[in-house]
């Protein structure tokens, strides 16, 4: 699924990955200073619509991923109601002898929505960026030493292999007489047991692939040419300008409506 969205040629897919990554970080820094619920809410709605409109990712898919995170988001509300730094003055009602204040609910909502904004922007990045393109952009645009870029790519390739191996190890251990884990301790023990065979195989694979890469003339230096050049285009300018408008709009809105 993810791969399918990453490969399509909508607007967001054509924006430089580094640009998207920077925008993601600016969103995080912008949000850190905000404690009202309206700004993150607005930003969340705009982001979701943006991903769907300019990234071609169906709304259903986005909402389905956000769903489990709303549980986490909700935890902020009750944390702020139960353990606030300062209890608010506008008491809405009392719950089990505990006054619930509007101000605390609002702060909780703000923090919860903030976490969803982080997730939605991460989603924007992940759904519209091919791994290879991201790595190439890090190497070409951010001056990441190729040794790191291609090294990570080589390991990333192992992901499905490790998953498969985990299943094999699980089956093999069951046959040795280890049943389904019982309780939390069982789960911890089981994870520990899987770790050694998986890590041992991972390390051997990693060593082999590194040797293979060097045998193909990879010395990790920047002296190499690129078949796919990840360049800056007009699309990045448009994306940056759009982001600026979004921040400007949000900031103006806050000045007019929240003060």
């Amino acid at each position, binding site marked *: 699924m993810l791969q399918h969205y990453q490969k399509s040629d909508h607007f967001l897919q054509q924006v430089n990955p580094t640009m998207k990554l920077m925008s993601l970080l600016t969103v995080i820094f912008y949000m850190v200073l905000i404690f009202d619920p309206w700004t993150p809410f607005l930003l969340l709605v705009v982001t979701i619509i943006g991903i769907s409109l300019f990234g071609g990712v169906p709304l259903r898919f986005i909402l389905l991923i956000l769903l489990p995170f709303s*549980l*986490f988001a909700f*935890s902020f509300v009750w944390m702020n109601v139960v353990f606030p730094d300062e209890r608010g003055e506008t008491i809405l009602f009392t719950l089990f002898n505990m006054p619930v204040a509007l101000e605390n609910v609002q*702060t909780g909502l703000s923090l919860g929505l903030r976490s969803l904004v982080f997730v939605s922007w991460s989603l924007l990045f992940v759904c519209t960026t091919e791994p290879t393109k991201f790595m190439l952009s890090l190497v070409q645009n951010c001056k990441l030493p190729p040794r790191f870029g291609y090294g990570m790519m080589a390991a990333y390739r192992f992901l499905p292999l490790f998953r498969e191996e985990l299943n094999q190890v699980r089956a093999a251990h069951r046959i040795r007489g280890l049943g389904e884990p019982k309780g939390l301790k069982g789960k911890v023990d089981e*994870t520990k047991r899987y770790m050694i065979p*998986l890590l041992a195989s991972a390390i051997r694979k990693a060593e082999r692939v590194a040797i293979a890469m060097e045998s193909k003339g990879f010395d990790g230096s920047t002296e190499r040419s690129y078949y796919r050049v990840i360049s800056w285009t007009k699309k990045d300018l448009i994306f940056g300008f759009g982001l600026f408008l979004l921040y400007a709009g949000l900031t103006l809105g806050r000045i007019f409506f929240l003060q």
Partner: protein
Amino acid sequence: MKNSKTLNLREIVVMASIAIVFGVLYLGWIFFGQVVRGVLGPVGWGLITGVWIMAPTMCAYIIQKPGVALAAELIAAVTEILVGSVNAGTVLLLGFTQGLGAEIGLALFLYRNYKLPGLMLAGVLGTFANFMTTYVLYGYSQYSPLVTWLMLGAMMISGAIFAGLGSKKISDALSCTGVLDNFALGKLRRQNQELNKGV
């Protein structure tokens, strides 16, 4: 082969692969983590945060070069984004701060002591950095100080236990399998074996 202080390709791929293995194993825990966080709140969550710093302390212990903890945590963060983590943004920031925290822990021992206390300190400082970052990111300033202090305490304990003790134990067990023979930890083990033979 030179025993240079810089990371070579083999070490980088190994670090990234360890990060991926942990990623695969964590998958079984993510749901559990969300539940803990949603139900028990930040304090309960704090008790398992040390798990996320296991990969960098483990890499540092295995490779024993300056900068490994930070590099490993950043590599882990980037690989997590490659894999498609929906926490890409926070993961990247946390990767940097946590890695830096763990790195400072090892630097305080001048990169000479890779024994349990050093690793535990690295784990504690790693989770401490995690706390500081999430404090800002998720607005913990809005909670009562009691909760935040409790959370910090839980996180630091978790860092010492999982990222310090846990990582060391797993790495030592791994070293016995012989796959680490080309890395600092495996070499130390073999040197010790030789010495013991001589005695």
